[in-house]
């Protein structure tokens, strides 16, 4: 039976997913081995049950991220923190340095101070999720089985980890396969 693979995009730039697409012809081998059941690149609204592996791009920045992450943890066997934003919280967490009032000050800066036309804060209850007071790496919220750092992780490292997982060996990146930034 094919393994059920999901990928999810939280607070990140999509660069990790772009790097995933850089797997090039290995993607063709991959479709023989896995079924992609949830991802920004497939049309699936809700996160399904019984997922084997989920690659998580991005830091946990808002209420929606938080809620979906808990659902993913419940429904998935193996979580991989995929890229520096997921592993360290990276650039999205730079607002944490501004202290307790950071959510207000970054919104003010982006949508009011720097706005050229029509300065206003994005507000739509139930549609625009509120920002969390503290941006977190994924493993600060839920248990994470494997870590794949890099900004973005090079395709070769993604291939190494995915191949190890699919062949049933305990995945382990070593030496040159670990890289931040």
């Amino acid at each position, binding site marked *: 039976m094919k393994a059920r693979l999901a990928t999810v995009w939280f607070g990140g730039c999509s660069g990790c997913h772009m790097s995933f697409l850089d797997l090039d012809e290995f993607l063709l081998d991959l479709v023989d081995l896995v079924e992609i059941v949830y991802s920004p690149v497939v049309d699936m609204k809700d996160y399904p049950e019984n997922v084997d592996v989920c690659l998580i791009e991005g830091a946990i920045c808002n209420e929606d991220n938080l809620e979906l992450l808990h659902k993913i943890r419940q429904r998935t066997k193996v979580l991989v923190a995929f890229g520096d934003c997921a592993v360290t919280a990276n*650039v999205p*967490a730079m607002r944490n*340095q501004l*202290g307790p009032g950071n959510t207000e000050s970054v919104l003010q800066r982006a949508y009011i101070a720097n706005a050229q036309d029509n300065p206003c804060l994005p507000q739509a209850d139930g549609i625009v999720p509120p920002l969390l007071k503290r941006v977190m790496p994924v*493993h600060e919220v839920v248990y994470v089985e494997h*870590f*794949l750092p890099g*900004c973005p992780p090079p395709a070769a490292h993604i291939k190494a980890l995915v191949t190890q997982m699919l062949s049933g060996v305990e995945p382990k990146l070593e030496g040159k396969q670990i890289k931040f*930034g």
Partner: protein
Amino acid sequence: MAAKTLSIDGKPITAEEGATVLQAAQEAGIKIPTLCHLDGIYDVGACRLCLVEVAGVPKLLPACTTKVAEGMEVKTTSERLRKYRRMTLELLFAERNHVCSSCVANGHCELQTLGYSLGMDHVRYDYLFPKWAVDTTHRLFGMDHNRCILCTRCVRVCWHIEGAGTKNVSGRGTKSHIITDLNQPWGESDSCTQCGKCVQACPTGALFHKGSTVGEMERDRGKLEFIVTAREKQQWIAAD
């Protein structure tokens, strides 16, 4: 000077009296990870990366400040040492803001390299996300406190190789930080000779040449070695 005989990782070794365990290991071709040590300047044992096990001593000892002794049995690798070294590194990462993807030293950083060699694929401790400034008031150099690991290499080269005494450490605990002169902007320092030795000595992205962008800050430690050799041996030989 009298010679001492000891063993490092089971290998019998002779070293000069007064030599450190680190020097003895280096001479025997045994590599011990270091971070605050820099060839040519005196050691302070600040980073604890070079911890080793010595038979009969319950606590771990820093190789860079522990002197060799007759009959000493030293172990430089073990599960226990790996555990503590990785823990130390993770705490260094958690204490300041290390955003490698936007750092001048990315790809040329001793902290990163050590992390990789110890298999550090994530940091288990909660990040502190402190607020630290970047001082760009100096004409040639910049100081980013977010990347500083307080190894004090910059302080030691500034005092003991350049003799300027511009750089210092101020504060305690997580508030400790590197200052210039009487805690004033670097650009307003009267004592700084603008020699750049601190920038060459820094293991991380904390000190940099102005104008360097992500990943551009590479160091040339050869320049420091050249001066130290010239002073200690009266030999003016350029490092290769």
